[in-house]
């Protein structure tokens, strides 16, 4: 399939206007995800974290822009690359780290780990490590919302690789037939693990949901204002009962498929990586807009950065000092009491 155009036709700066307050909030959220994950990478590299993790760095604008368009009661479901979604929907850094370290105060009491963080209190129905599964959870949540008249929207985050799973098509069909309030957010970071998505995807991504009569938008995923405004419009329609919508955001993961994927040259070039980091970084793009058009001082941004770093460090400290679950916990929660 052909590569996407990075500047989608019809991009109109005007329509991405957001309030200063909102922009600063989104800025802080993106920085939080960035620093959180850099810490995760470091924990892995210094052998302080059990297992692996899939970093979201580079894709922050999507989670933040979409979650900004949601209410707290709205649902999200997430993937193996889920830290960004969890944080954007409202998870606390300390409890996130605790989960990653397999500690008791982690969001899943240490049972889930990086790929399974769930926080129903913030509307997060959990990350799921099976590609495509998040779409099922969100479609089901949308079914509940519709049946019980809750007025909630459910958002499924997944990568473009999930379009390889037949499940997605079964879900899109039913969601469209039954006009379920679900928004599918496809984060097209161009790679399914170590394979470029063009080698695994016939035709155009956007034609898949369109075939089911689903409202579909494809945008660049690096400008959080664009993501937010587009998501906001789609969420409005979805909530109004117009049926599901599908949002494709073209993006890039800066790091490896997971923290252990260090030598990547056999599947992508350093130049490509460098270009995205330099020219399409979501934090820089929003930062530039804030300073250039909103007269926000660089000091204000640095201050945010500093505050976030402190939050991250104290969260990590909390997690490191937290106890492991009691060994007897191993048998608990197999069945609901």
């Amino acid at each position, binding site marked *: 399939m052909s590569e996407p155009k990075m500047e989608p036709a019809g991009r109109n700066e005007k329509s991405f206007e957001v309030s200063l307050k909102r922009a600063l909030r989104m800025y802080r959220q993106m920085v939080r995800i960035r620093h959180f994950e850099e810490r995760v990478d470091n924990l892995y590299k210094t052998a302080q974290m059990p297992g692996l993790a899939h970093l979201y760095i580079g894709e922050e604008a999507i989670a933040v822009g979409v979650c900004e368009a949601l209410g707290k009661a709205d*649902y999200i*479901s997430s993937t193996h690359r889920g830290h960004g979604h969890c944080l954007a929907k409202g998870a606390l850094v300390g409890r996130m780290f605790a989960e990653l370290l397999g500690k008791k105060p*982690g*969001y*899943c*009491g*240490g*049972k*889930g780990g990086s790929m*399974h963080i*769930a*926080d*129903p209190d913030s509307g997060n*129905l*959990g990350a*799921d490590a*099976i590609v495509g*599964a998040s*779409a*099922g*959870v*969100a*479609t*089901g*949540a*949308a*079914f*509940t*919302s519709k*049946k*019980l008249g809750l007025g909630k929207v*459910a958002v499924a985050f997944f990568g473009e690789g999930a379009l390889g799973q*037949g*499940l997605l098509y*079964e*879900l899109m*069909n*039913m969601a469209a*037939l039954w006009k379920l309030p679900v928004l599918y957010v496809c984060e097209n970071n161009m790679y399914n693990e170590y394979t470029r998505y063009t080698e695994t995807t016939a035709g155009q991504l956007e034609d898949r949901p369109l075939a089911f009569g689903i409202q579909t938008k494809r945008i660049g995923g690096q400008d959080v204002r664009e993501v937010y405004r587009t998501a906001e419009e789609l969420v409005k329609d979805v909530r109004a009962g117009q049926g599901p919508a599908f949002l494709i955001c073209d993006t890039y993961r800066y790091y490896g498929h997971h923290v252990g994927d260090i030598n990547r040259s056999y599947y992508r070039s350093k130049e490509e990586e460098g270009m995205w980091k330099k020219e399409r970084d979501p934090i820089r793009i929003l930062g530039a807009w804030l300073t250039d058009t909103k007269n926000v001082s660089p000091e204000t941004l640095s201050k945010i950065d500093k505050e976030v770093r402190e939050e991250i460090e104290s969260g990590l400290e909390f997690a490191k000092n937290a106890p492991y679950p009691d060994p007897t916990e191993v048998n*608990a*929660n*197999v*069945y*609901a*009491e």
Partner: protein
Amino acid sequence: MFMQNNQVNDENMREISFAEAIREALAEEMRRDPTVYIMGEDVAEAGTPFKVLLGLVDEFGTERVVDTPISEAGFSAIGVGSAMTGMRPVIDIMFGDFLPLAMEQIVNRAAKIHYMSGGKLRVPIVFRTTLGAGRRSAAQHSQSLHAWFSHIPGLKVAIPSTPYDAKGLWKTAIRDDSPVIFFEDKMMYSLKGLVPDEEYTIPFGLADIKRSGKDITLVATSSMVQVALDAAKKLEEIGLSAEVVDPRTTWPLDKKTLIASAKKTGRVIVIDEGYEQYGVTAELAAVIAEGAFYYLDAPVRRFGAMDVPVPFSPVLEDQTIPSAEQIVEAAKDLCAV
């Protein structure tokens, strides 16, 4: 009519079929709890191909008895997501042979989400499906795959043998906060039995002694309970007193009752309609052989379905299902008569 230990008294009993018992249980629970709904292929007006659900749509409407596309994975996924968010779905998988399509949803999601989330999320869902050969439906419509689900921690598996048990177990299944796989033998829908007028439920993990005896124990499940009872009658004629024990749920498993019966009689045959190799009979035999080791006068004998794909031709198919004659022969052998 079967012997049923939980019987109240005959005056308050009605004779209904296995299918009617199931329908009554579903109707009662749907009346009691508005979050219960049924979803699957041709469940509404058609009432499923076996007509077991006939009429439910008249009372509860298509909002709660939901016809789907032929998308077992997709609607199972919606079921799981809706169960996580407050509904109590009954997901209808027309033939047990189609379960493999929904396996990923059942095993990686329904069975694990409660545990993975550290107990925060629950998946109160029932997968309703069939087992059993004998209908000349060949290899893809005749399997009894309950062993697979019995193998997976996080799932419960109900497998009733009488209208009384079917109704009571169904009501328990729907009220359970954990996922349940409910297997109905498709040859048993017209079987009649007594059911009390008043409401009742049957706890999971409680075996039922369908017939008391002292010389040999026949542990049997689902349709094989009838076969065991037939065998017991024949054994009586030659002076052997057989006890017939029905676990009713393969998980949780009432090991205590099984072992106690084995200790009493000293001889055991286990009978189940799943494939014999690595099937339900293996677990039951292993549990009994270990638990009653010092009481057994002979090895535990197993009868599962013959280890072949179910053939179409009646002269072949009939050989694959355990028969009363085979059990009588084995019992005589074990009792050295």
